[in-house]
């Protein structure tokens, strides 16, 4: 497998007792790109992201993240933003900043403080008292303030108002580094299409298509969003 790819999997399988979520997934995600992981609900997107982030173990197949099997070394270089809020409720903002600094040597605390200040979030604020939207922004800031090699964003713009969505996309673009890859899992493609280099379509736990956004537009004469709708028409 290509060791230059940030994610590399072959025949990746994840079986739950009730379902076969990934069925022989084989793909490579290159470094330095913003990649969209697209697929309908239940296609295996979240399972794949959890496998890459080390929250799940594969049932079969091979998976390498930055050249390592998911574990302590891969977790060091991966910055993961799940769909849910994972912050310790009892902490204040400054507490969670300290925690990220403690555990992640690549955490850029100054950058995080700057972004928080620009959103008007006080360091002494208690996480418990924040609205869901604000907590999500704090989480996004924490994740993007790490100088990681891979950013995993699971549905970052679902259920979010347009202003917040623009803020999120702007943060992703301005934080872009050519040494890092951002993998965004979403089913809301039209909002995010312009920000993506490449897309990977997943269906029934397998890869269906991997291509650059402009290649799709050039070849098919339609947007990725439209292609997605046609591909996954029920």
């Amino acid at each position, binding site marked *: 497998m290509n060791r230059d790819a940030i994610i590399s999997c072959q025949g990746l399988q994840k079986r739950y007792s009730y379902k076969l979520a990934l069925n022989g997934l084989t793909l490579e995600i290159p470094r*330095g*790109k*913003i990649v969209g992981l697209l697929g309908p609900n239940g296609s295996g997107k979240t399972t794949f992201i959890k496998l890459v982030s080390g929250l799940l173990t594969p049932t079969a197949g091979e998976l390498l993240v930055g050249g390592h099997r998911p574990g302590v070394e891969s977790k060091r270089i991966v910055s993961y933003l799940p769909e849910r809020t994972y912050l310790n409720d009892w902490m204040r903002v400054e507490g969670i900043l300290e925690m990220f600094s403690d555990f992640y040597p690549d955490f850029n605390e100054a950058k995080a403080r700057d972004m928080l200040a620009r959103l008007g979030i006080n360091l002494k604020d208690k996480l418990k008292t924040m609205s869901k939207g604000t907590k999500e922004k704090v989480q996004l800031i924490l994740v993007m303030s790490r100088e990681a090699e891979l950013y995993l964003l699971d549905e970052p713009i679902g259920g979010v108002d347009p202003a917040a969505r*623009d803020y999120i*996309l*702007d943060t992703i*673009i*301005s934080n*872009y580094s050519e040494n890092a890859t951002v993998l965004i899992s979403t089913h809301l493609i*039209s909002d995010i*299409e*312009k*920000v*993506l*280099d490449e897309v990977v379509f997943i269906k029934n736990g397998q890869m269906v298509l991997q291509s650059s*956004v*402009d290649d799709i*537009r*050039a070849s098919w*004469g*339609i*947007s990725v*969003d*439209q292609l997605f709708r046609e591909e996954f028409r029920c």
Partner: protein
Amino acid sequence: MWKIESDRPIYLQLVETLQQQILTGVYPPGGKLPSVRDLAAEAAVNPNTMQKALGELERLGLVYAQRTAGRFITDDRERLEQMKEQLAAEQVQIFLKKMSEMGLSRQDVIALLERAEKEME
């Protein structure tokens, strides 16, 4: 300003918009372009795509890169004028074609143009 349509490659549309901005003087000859990152953020597109567009502008001779200083608009005014005329001519062709498709004669088109000019004043 950055209106991007869904069915054409994004980088081509970026090239067009930047070209327009250069020719209309938004980015004056000899001036410095913002960084790739800033332009990408402004257009809300992927920095790699913006990079590709800028590469294309370099190929067209509108822009040149100076290793650490960034990208600059050419100060070859002749070239810019040439390009302006070329693009204008293209627009005229498109316009004339549309008019003839609608069945208007040369006279009709000239009358339309004069009337429109008066209204603009």
